[in-house]
């Protein structure tokens, strides 16, 4: 008998005596004591096992058996080949066309027309329009593909990406919720290289703005149409827009109205902001604008969900923030490796290296949450909660990444010679914006 077994035997003896004790007839006490006994014995037996187990060999396989690669059903968010090709193309456009023009567009508060035309030529608008109406949309919702496009454009410049994507959002809304008549009237124009400049107007200039409690209201007229009144803030591309999609309250809850900019009673004032300057944001006031009965997106039928609309709009801003956060990271890494202070690259300092690592981690987290919500939205599954998580993270971390990028560049972060000050300003928009875009 080994010493351990001796010890075990002694322990068991005590435990057995305790187990049979009349003292434990009280049910509460007995329960506690049994637990103690069970715990003690099982530990004891495990200990004995460690000492005495003999491993028996099974018949030897011809070679080592290893688990194979798992099917990509859960947690595999790898873009498809087509999505990757779309991503590469848009990223190339953003790097070669948008980035070099971004500083000037920011100063001028506007994106050059030629660039908007070049972006339209890529056919992002066509991708939203069904084939039957002359577009190239597949039969499936392309929320994820649109998120990839937005991310890639924003890697070039966030403000210009907003300018390029503003009409796309209107096309997405029409494709998703428009009536057959509304689709036939407006969607074919979006396949054109001269797609109508258009924008979604949701945000209102008032404290504690809530997109679900809109001041802008659409009232029914006796003739069966609507009268639209209210004011919208930070509407991208408003001054040159031909078409607006305006969120307004109705007796049946908030809804979207298609408003052509030729309608009487629309007043547009430039509203340049801290960021998104290349998107020519403006304030749009609707003074008793008369709308026909056809103006209500979806005509109150179908499965229009204002909640889903707002969530998908927020996802667009998330995707943009991911692209710009990635741009900051891609700019910081070579900068900090090359910038020499005290005789060595600043990336050798932990204060710098850890910060950059955090940016990489946070940007990837933002991306995964955004893609996850977008994938759920594309599949027609509930996604509002996931979208809310993505928005919270992207708004918070996007702003932090912008600020950290400025800090890591030191004096260079503050001046316009480097793009990070612009990214810092643009990334602040993500937590504020409502509407404007749609995936």
């Amino acid at each position, binding site marked *: 008998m080994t010493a351990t077994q001796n010890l075990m035997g002694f322990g068991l003896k005590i435990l057995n005596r305790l187990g049979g004790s009349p003292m434990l007839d009280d049910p509460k006490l007995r329960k506690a004591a049994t637990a103690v006994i069970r715990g003690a014995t099982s530990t004891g037996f495990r200990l004995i096992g460690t000492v005495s187990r003999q491993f028996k060999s099974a018949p030897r396989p011809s070679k080592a058996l290893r688990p194979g690669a798992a099917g990509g059903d859960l947690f595999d968010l790898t873009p498809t080949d*087509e999505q990757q*090709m779309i991503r*590469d193309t848009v990223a190339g456009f953003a790097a070669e066309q948008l980035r070099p023009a971004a500083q000037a567009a920011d100063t001028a508060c506007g994106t050059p027309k030629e660039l908007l035309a070049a972006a339209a030529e*890529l056919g992002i608008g*066509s*991708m939203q329009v069904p084939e039957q109406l002359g577009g190239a949309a597949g039969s499936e919702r392309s929320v994820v593909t649109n998120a990839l496009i937005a991310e890639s454009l924003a890697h070039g410049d966030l403000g210009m990406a907003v300018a390029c994507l503003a009409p796309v959002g209107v096309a997405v809304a029409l494709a998703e919720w428009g009536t057959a008549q509304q689709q036939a009237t407006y969607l074919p124009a979006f396949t054109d290289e001269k797609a109508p400049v258009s924008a979604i107007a949701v945000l209102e200039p008032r404290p504690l703005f809530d997109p679900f409690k809109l001041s802008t209201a659409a009232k029914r007229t006796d003739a069966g149409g609507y009268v639209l009144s209210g004011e919208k803030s930070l509407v991208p591309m408003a001054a040159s827009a031909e078409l607006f999609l305006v969120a307004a309250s109705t007796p049946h809850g908030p809804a979207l109205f298609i408003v052509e900019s030729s309608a009487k009673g629309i007043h547009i004032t430039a509203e340049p902001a801290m960021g998104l300057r290349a998107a020519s944001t403006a304030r749009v006031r609707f003074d008793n604008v008369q709308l026909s009965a056809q103006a209500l997106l979806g005509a109150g039928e179908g499965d229009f969900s204002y909640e889903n609309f707002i969530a998908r709009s927020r996802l667009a801003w998330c995707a943009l923030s991911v692209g710009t956060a990635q741009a900051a990271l891609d700019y910081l890494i070579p900068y900090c490796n090359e910038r020499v202070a005290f005789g060595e690259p600043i990336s050798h300092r932990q204060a710098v290296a850890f910060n950059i690592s955090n940016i990489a981690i946070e940007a990837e987290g933002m991306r995964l949450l955004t893609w996850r919500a977008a994938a759920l939205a594309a599949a027609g599954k509930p996604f509002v909660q996931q979208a809310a998580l993505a928005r919270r993270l992207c708004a918070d971390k996007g702003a932090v990444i912008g600020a950290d990028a400025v800090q890591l560049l030191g004096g260079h972060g503050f001046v316009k010679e480097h793009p990070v000050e612009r990214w810092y300003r643009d990334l602040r928009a993500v937590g504020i914006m409502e509407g404007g875009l749609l995936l």
Partner: protein
Amino acid sequence: MKVLVSVKRVVDYNVRIQVKSDGSGVVTDGVKFSMNPFDEIAMEEAVRLREKGKVTEIVAVTIGGAKNEETLRSALAFGADRAIHIKEEGEVQPLTAAKAFAAVLKKEGAQLFLCGKQAIDDDANQTGQMVASLLDIAQATFASKVEVDGSKAQITREIDAGLETLEVDLPAVVSVDLRLNEPRYLKLPDIMKAKKKPIETIGLGDVGVAVEAGTKTVKVAPPPARAKGVMVKTVDELVSALKAKGLV
């Protein structure tokens, strides 16, 4: 007129190439691949010739492993009507590729073979020339301008002394240089349409070619790291520094 354009899948030109620690090649795991930029120029030229009404069909061809299908998809998105994938998982050297392309060119009866002047991975600059020799047809390399007129083509090429213009009888092989054109951005709807275009997959055996390894890669090594420079203040200092190093 039918044009055959060869495209190669190479490590993307933006990637910072890293040599494997055992010197057997470069790291390709997790590295972005794309179409050889010179081949993109060849594709663009084929599309432009079609837009001018000179070309009726564009066929893209590549040789290599399964992943090369991605490159053919890009070619289809670019505007190729169909694609041929000569599948070969092993190493493909220029002569093997040239023999395979020559066989496809002959079978297809294409009047023009467009290819990049070289691929940016091995910079061999051999395949186009070999295709022309194997078929005993005309060739014009490093084209900076291509004009097709009936059964002839005029090719302008940049040479040391200026520009040289060659006239070749078709069928001919034309390898294209950097300044021929600037490839356009793919249109996203075309990327979606490319999915529906046909890719014919064949083996080397189907074109009667065997893999040949005329050369053997002995070792791949990164270029030596640049030594730290020395700042000089005057020309005299520069001259004496060069003399001290025995360079002048």
